[in-house]
C-alpha cells in the first residue's frame, strides 16, 4: 500500500535496517553452524550432544575417570542444599520459582537473555538476585556457595531440556551478541591470548599438563563441582580465573563483559542438552 514519499523513505529505511537485522540475525546462526562444524571436524568421533562434557567428550582416559566419579557425584550434598534454597520462601512468602516465572516464564535453558527494557543481558544469577531484591531479600554474593548451590539446583531441574538462547531482531541484542563474540576472540593479558586461542584453535591440545577443553556446549554443564576445590564453581568465576591465567585484569562476576561472553557461548551452545551441575577436575 503506497503512502507519502516520507513513508516510502521510512519504509525503505525500515527495510534496510530490517534487512541488516536479518543479516545480523543470520550471523549468529551462521556463527553457531560454523562453531559446530569446526569442533565436529576436529573431533569427528564425538557425537554432538557429548560436547556438553567439555574435555571429557574428547579424551577417553579423562572420560573414564569422570564416569567413575559421576557414579556417585560429589556435588550431591551441595545440590540438596541448593534445592532447599530454591524452595525456601522469602520473608514475604514469595518463592524463587514463582518470581522467576515473571520473566516471561523462561525456563533455565532460556537464560541468559537480552532484556529489551534495560538493554542488558540477564543471566540466571542476575535474575535470582533481582527476585531477591524485589522481594526484600539481600542479594547473594556471586562468588559464594549459596548462589552456586541455587544455580546447581535450578540447572539440575533443567536436565532433559536443551539450551534455547537465540539472538532476536532487536538491534541492541545483536550488539550485545557481537560484543560477546568480540570478547571471545580478543587477545588479552600479558600472555596475549584469547578464549579462542586456547579453546578453539588449540582445543584438545595440552597446555601445562592439561588438555584444553572445547567450548561447544561447555556452558551447559555449569555450575561445576571442581575436584580441585571440593566445591561448586560458577561460569563467571571460571571467567575470572581464565583472565587471571592469561594475566589480564579480571572483571567482577556478572559484570557486563562476562554476561556478554556467557550470551555468546550460550548462543553457540543452543540446541545442546542442559547438563548441570557438572564435574570438573
Amino acid at each position, binding site marked *: 500500500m503506497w503512502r507519502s514519499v516520507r513513508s516510502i523513505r521510512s519504509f525503505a529505511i525500515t527495510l534496510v535496517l530490517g534487512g541488516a537485522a536479518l543479516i545480523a540475525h543470520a550471523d549468529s546462526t551462521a556463527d553457531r553452524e560454523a562453531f559446530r562444524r569446526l569442533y565436529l571436524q576436529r573431533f569427528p568421533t564425538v557425537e554432538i550432544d557429548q560436547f556438553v562434557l567439555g574435555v571429557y567428550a574428547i579424551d577417553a582416559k579423562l572420560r573414564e575417570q569422570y564416569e567413575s566419579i559421576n*557414579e*556417585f557425584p*560429589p556435588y*550431591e*550434598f551441595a545440590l540438596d*542444599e541448593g534445592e*532447599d534454597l530454591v524452595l525456601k520462601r522469602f520473608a514475604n512468602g514469595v518463592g524463587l520459582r514463582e518470581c522467576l516465572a515473571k520473566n516471561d516464564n523462561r525456563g533455565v535453558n532460556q537464560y541468559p537473555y537480552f532484556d529489551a527494557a534495560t538493554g542488558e543481558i540477564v543471566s540466571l544469577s542476575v535474575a535470582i538476585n533481582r527476585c531477591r531484591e524485589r522481594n526484600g531479600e539481600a542479594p547473594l554474593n556471586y562468588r559464594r556457595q549459596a548462589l552456586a548451590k541455587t544455580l546447581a539446583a535450578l540447572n539440575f531441574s533443567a536436565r532433559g531440556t536443551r539450551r534455547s538462547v537465540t539472538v532476536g531482531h532487536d538491534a541492541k541484542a545483536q550488539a550485545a551478541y557481537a560484543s560477546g563474540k568480540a570478547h571471545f576472540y580478543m587477545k588479552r593479558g600479558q600472555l596475549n591470548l584469547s578464549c579462542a586461542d586456547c579453546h578453539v584453535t588449540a582445543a584438545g591440545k595440552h597446555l601445562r599438563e592439561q588438555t584444553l577443553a572445547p567450548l561447544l556446549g561447555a556452558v551447559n554443564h555449569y555450575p561445576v563441582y571442581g575436584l580441585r576445590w*571440593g566445591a561448586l564453581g560458577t561460569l563467571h568465576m571460571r571467567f575470572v580465573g581464565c583472565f587471571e591465567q592469561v594475566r589480564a585484569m579480571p572483571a567482577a562476576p556478572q559484570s557486563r563483559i562476562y554476561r556478554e561472553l556467557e550470551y555468546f557461548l550460550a548462543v553457540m551452545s543452543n540446541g545442546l542438552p542442559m547438563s548441570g551441575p557438572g564435574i570438573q577436575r
Partner: protein
Amino acid sequence: MSNSIKVRTSVRNNTVTVRMLVRHAMEVGGVRANGERVAAHFIKEITCTHNGKTVMVGHWGAGIAKNPYLSFTIRDAAVGDELRIRWVDNQGGIDEFATRI
C-alpha cells in the same frame, strides 16, 4: 539436611553392592600459603553393619579424598535387610545413618 551419609544399594542374586558418599572435609591440616593454620579434620573410622553384624570397618587417614566415596559388596544379603553406617572423626565428630537395602 544435616545427614552426611548417602547410601545406594544394588542387589544381584544374593549379593548387594553398597555405594556411599559421605560429606566430610577430610582436611589434611597444616599451614596454608597465606600463613593460616588449619587443623587436621578427617574421618578416622567408618563402620558398616548388615543386620547388626559388622561387615566393613574403614580405618582412614586424611589421604582419603574430600567428600569420601566408598563401595563394597556383601554376600548373603537381601532386599529389606538393614544397613547401618557410622563414622567418627579425629575431632570427635560423629554421624550415623540407617537404611534398608
